[in-house]
């Protein structure tokens, strides 16, 4: 199941990650089932790169991101992270107390800029909180650091005595980024950081993230559902479907020569800026499978137009069929699939 990690220069190595949410019912709230939000996900992120994580709503992208950071406790699997000071650590086995030592190196940027900032705190207090808690700075030094961080994300430090409600969505997202940067993290999980923003603001925030990556040598796990955004920012992309990674490859390889039928359908749905083009998008019949009651075999087989008998019986494993191109499909080598049309 696990993707081979003979890779070097890794920062994060996730193997067979599982996160199940119990379904309780009845008066005594007995566990009667589980929503398998993340069910055996394996991937790795190299130091300094951006891994895009795409998929439909509810496929487990956000849960994956939050479980890696231990905002949720994993049900199974291993998460290994290369801490600059501590070396390789097993995130999945650490206690909450032990996590505190690693936390500064792993941060998150949230989707909704309106609920990710405490409305009762000034911008100064929001951005300085990580520094205060981890006793990095105090007094005038603290103030200078906050001003510096705000300048870095393109905000005027004079605004720091204001409350979040005085800012627009894009500005709030910048404040959230400043907070994430405060402790000099290595890895930042960007959980749909631009989905809630206007298109013009999206571009600004994306450029900011790219600039920061270059300047500060950051590594991103970039979760999104907007394929063009992901293509723009990612070095590699992983595609999720109902709690599984179905394909992971370099951005170009994945977009232009996908190997999984689901990726093909996704790519066909990317709108093309050419009115004369009459490519028909691939219609996927049926509904997205329920993570509480998934189909047998390959989760995608009821909707796959290439499905054969084996697909409903055996779950395909994620295999490296070309260097750095991982696919979970029985027919990945045979199928000739269409990518994004240039």
């Amino acid at each position, binding site marked *: 199941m696990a993707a081979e990690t003979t890779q070097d220069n890794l920062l994060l190595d996730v193997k067979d990650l599982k996160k199940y949410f119990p379904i309780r019912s009845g008066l005594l*709230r007995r566990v009667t089932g589980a929503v398998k939000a993340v069910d055996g996900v394996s991937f790795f992120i190299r130091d300094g790169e951006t891994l895009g994580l795409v998929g439909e709503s509810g496929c487990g992208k956000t849960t994956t991101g939050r479980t890696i950071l231990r905002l949720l406790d994993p049900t199974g699997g291993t998460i290994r992270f290369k801490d600059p000071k501590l070396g390789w650590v097993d995130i999945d086995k650490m206690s909450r107390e032990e996590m505190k030592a690693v936390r500064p190196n792993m941060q998150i940027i949230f989707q909704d800029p309106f*609920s*990710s900032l405490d409305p*009762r*705190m000034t911008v100064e207090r929001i951005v300085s909180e990580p520094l205060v*808690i981890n006793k990095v700075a105090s007094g005038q030094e603290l103030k200078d650091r906050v001003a510096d961080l705000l300048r870095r994300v393109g905000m005027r430090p004079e605004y720091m005595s204001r409350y979040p409600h005085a800012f627009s969505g894009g500005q709030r997202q910048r404040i959230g980024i400043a907070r994430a940067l405060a402790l000099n993290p290595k890895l930042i999980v960007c959980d749909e950081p631009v989905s809630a923003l206007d298109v013009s603001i999206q571009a600004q925030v994306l450029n900011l993230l790219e600039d920061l990556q270059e300047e500060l040598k950051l590594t991103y796990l970039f979760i999104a559902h907007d394929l063009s955004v992901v293509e723009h920012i990612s070095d590699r992309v992983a595609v999720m479907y109902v709690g599984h990674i179905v394909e992971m490859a370099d951005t170009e390889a994945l977009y232009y020569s996908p190997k999984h039928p689901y990726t093909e359908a996704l790519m066909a749905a990317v709108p093309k800026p050419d009115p004369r083009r009459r490519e028909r998008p691939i219609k996927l019949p049926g509904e997205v499978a329920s993570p509480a009651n998934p189909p047998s075999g390959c989760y995608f087989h009821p909707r796959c137009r290439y499905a054969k008998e084996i697909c409903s019986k055996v779950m395909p494993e994620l295999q490296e069929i070309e260097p750095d191109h991982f696919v979970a499909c029985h027919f990945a080598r045979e199928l000739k699939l269409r990518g994004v049309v240039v």
Partner: protein
Amino acid sequence: MTRQEAAARRLLGREQEAEREQKVTNLWADALRRMARNRAAIVGLVIIIALVIMAIFADKIAPYDYRAGDSADNYMVPLWLTRILPGNMAAYAQIGNKYLFGADYLGRDLLSRVIYGTRVSLPVGFVGAMTALIIGLVYGSISGYYGGKVDDIMMRIVDIVYAFPTMLLIILLMAFFKTSFGGANVPGTAAYTFNRINHVVDRFLGLEGGGMLFIFMGIGITAWMGIARLARGQILSLKEKEFILASRMIGASDIRIITRHILPNIIGPILVTVTLSIPGYISTEVFLSFIGLGVDPPTPSWGAMISEGARAIRSYPNQVLLPALMLAITMFAFNFLGDGLRDALDPRMRGTS
């Protein structure tokens, strides 16, 4: 100066102006400003402040002693009251202008007793509110924040306590406190300790033998559940917010998250509820005193005065009207203030006036 430059100047000027305007938007300052515009709330606040002053300086303001009366003056009614009140009081009442609002059945000045009555009603309102706030907030915060089984068990306990009829529970409690603690004089027992604390409380409030501690306890025990439920509900909705997750990501402890992020965000609605519940506590004490389970004589509780006055309501209505009027004014004042607070703190009211 070209046209464009002038336009740019104008724009810039307007921007700076807008900035200056925005700078003062502290949420609490905002709320305060909104409340200052609410006339009813300000009237309520002024009345409450006046009542507090009345309570603190009761011994200086009150023209007569609240304990001892002159039996020759019993049921004395001033002339101006006989003209206002219905019935032909002048025909049978002892008319005398010694007391502004008349005297009670023991010849004690009604006005002085009503003034001293604030020393009972206001502490009951404030202490009841504080006890309910502290117990309810701590209990509700723990239950809501930790959730799961802890929440289940803690909330079932609230349900059970809630299931008792409040009035019946408080009557039983008061009867219990008064009989087992009130007369306790054997040093070393818990009942004796309670009795001593009660004396200290009474002396602090400047009352003679009031039994105030027992009323505080009775109200405290029965009043915290509402706040606990409210706090829990608020926290449940708040703890899923992403800024709470963000704090956890930067290594904030549970205590820090509760005190720095959660409490400041829920204190608004809770403050409003507490303020609006103060009249309830005051009326509970009045009710208890009315049925004889409240403060002990000669401490002048409004409830006890209403109870005594009600016996002579047909012949001497002034005896019941004065304390009832004070009670009504006090309750209105707290309700107005609470309404004002709610309007000021409710973000949905932002921008409306």
